[in-house]
């Protein structure tokens, strides 16, 4: 069994997203360890992409800073090798299709297996295109984590039925970023998911406060937070790790 399941066995899962290399890889390593110490159940590690079309300004900024700092896919693989010396929770990569494709799908995905990555989230890879990477992911036991959006409607059942790892439920229209209010009927989406699979699902996009995390995870199996964490990294730079840790604890406690 893929270790992702274990992230959902300790109450509701809190899933932080961290862009690797923002502002540098040492800070990323420290921040990941702080997040683990403070209750993160699974971590999404972002491999930066030059043109992240699903991201709002905050995560776009993190991508630009990381790439400007000279981060590459190979350096991020080394970071994960280092983290895996002591980090036991599931880790997944979040990046764009071209980062995987251009590296060579087989080479990228087999390296994921070797270094202890459990899953892959590609926001520009919809259900219809999953065969680009799915056979290779299955070969190496890497979960290709699908996304379901507020506009998915008649597609939810189809996507849920074949889901692996967990399902990323996109809370709102538009790109990533903090929102004061989430208007989508998450309960209705989760209901259709439940009718079709027992794979866990977590809600992301727009969650920043403990209240939102509590509300969204009550409707599902967990909450994913990106922009709010990137904001802390943007503010504190190399000193951000303890602040992220504190934030993770406050979110996990609220859930």
């Amino acid at each position, binding site marked *: 069994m893929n270790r992702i399941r274990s992230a959902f066995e300790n109450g509701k899962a809190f899933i932080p997203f961290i862009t690797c290399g923002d502002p540098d890889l040492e800070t990323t390593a420290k921040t990941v360890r702080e997040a683990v110490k403070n209750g993160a159940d699974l971590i999404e590690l972002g491999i930066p992409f030059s*043109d992240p079309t699903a991201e709002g300004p905050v995560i776009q900024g993190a991508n630009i800073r990381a790439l400007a700092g000279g981060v590459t896919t190979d350096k991020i693989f080394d970071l994960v090798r280092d983290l895996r010396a002591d980090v036991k929770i599931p880790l997944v990569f979040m990046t764009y299709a*071209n*980062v995987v*494709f251009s590296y060579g799908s087989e080479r990228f995905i087999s390296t994921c297996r070797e270094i202890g990555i459990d899953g892959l989230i590609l926001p520009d890879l919809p259900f*219809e*295109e999953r065969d*680009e990477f799915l056979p290779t992911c299955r070969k190496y036991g890497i979960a290709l984590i699908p996304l379901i959006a507020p506009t998915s409607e008649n597609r939810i059942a189809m996507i849920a039925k074949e889901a692996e790892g967990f399902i990323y439920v996109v809370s709102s*229209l538009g*790109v990533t970023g903090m929102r004061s209010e989430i208007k989508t009927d998450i309960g209705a989406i989760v209901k259709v998911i439940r009718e079709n699979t027992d794979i866990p699902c977590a809600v992301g996009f727009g969650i920043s406060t403990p209240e939102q995390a509590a509300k969204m995870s009550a409707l599902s199996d967990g909450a994913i937070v990106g922009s709010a964490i990137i904001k802390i990294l943007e503010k504190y730079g190399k000193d951000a790790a303890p602040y992220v840790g504190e934030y993770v604890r406050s979110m996990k406690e609220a859930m």
Partner: protein
Amino acid sequence: MSSSRGRFGIHGGQYIPETLMNAVIELEAAYNRYKDDPDFNRELNALLNDYAGRPSRLYYAEKMTRDLGGAKIYLKREDLNHTGAHKINNVLGQALLAKRMGKTRLIAETGAGQHGVATATAAALMGMECVVFMGEEDTKRQALNVYRMKLLGSEVIPVKTGTATLKDAVSEAMREWTRRISDTHYCLGSVMGPHPFPTIVRDFQAVISREIKEQLFEKEGRLPDAVIACVGGGSNAIGSFYHFIGDESVALIGCEAAGRGIDTFETAATVNTGRLGIFHGMKSYFCQDEFGQIAPVYSISAGLDYPGIGPEHAHLHDIGRAQYVPITDDEAVEAFEYLAKTEGIIPAIESAHAVAYAKKIAPNMGKDKIIVVTLSGRGDKDCAAIARYRGEDINE
């Protein structure tokens, strides 16, 4: 088993966020419903003819032919269309389709501003709201077109991310579409992006090659030996090629923007310097680094300053049916000036890339050969930038 749609060989597909999937599926269904619908086509043809000024002329460039001393050169005058470029062909089709789908708002990306102006024009004509995304760098290079769009009632949003050029404008338009789908149609300007856009835009631009074929048959009683067009995403080129793809004797030549040269980093020649990748909704060739980061490309031409190429072109390249040649800034500027002085026609700097290649090959071809060069747009918008390139500062 793959359920991927919209492939040209290995290229194409729909690599987009899940949020947009139902929107492109709905668009494909609407297009399939209306593309052969007599009422839809009657309305579109009336607009193309009475509003946009089609058919565009096929002009025999006699002085240029004599000067080069080889093949006979015809110019397909898309620059004479209303709004000054081929972009209007596609936009009128998509805007009509969007209206049939009940959409009230158009969004678009633009590079040189020609597609933005065409979209703003169609929106004004059809009473739709319009928002155009344009790289901040391009709003400076093409200030006149920014003003035209505003005059036509559109909002123009300067995009400051990345290289602040066409690719960033596409990214931002895609982001906007994921934010607001129900009333909004993304009027994509080239034969790129996710399926069904490369097919829809090609079909609306195919009028160019249909007319070339008829007009040349009337004038010469035969097919051309070569058709030459500039390629960024590749909409005027695919429009110029489409009805000749089955005619193996016709050489199809796309001219890519080489910028300062394909041996430099300041280039936008995708087929000549890029490699296979996945970006902006499609699998195709892209300028990128070894880790798949999209390259910050460069060309003097804002309309060709794009790191990718439409999937059907990538396929025509793979199977050897079309060839894609690099043309530098210097060559394009020289051709821009040449056509102005020789024929009294100022071409868009994009189209000047095609003129430049015709200049190269015509002298080596026999006088019994025929080349058709598509002038995708007119060059008024470029005069200030070319003057600057030549070290002259003029007030726009």
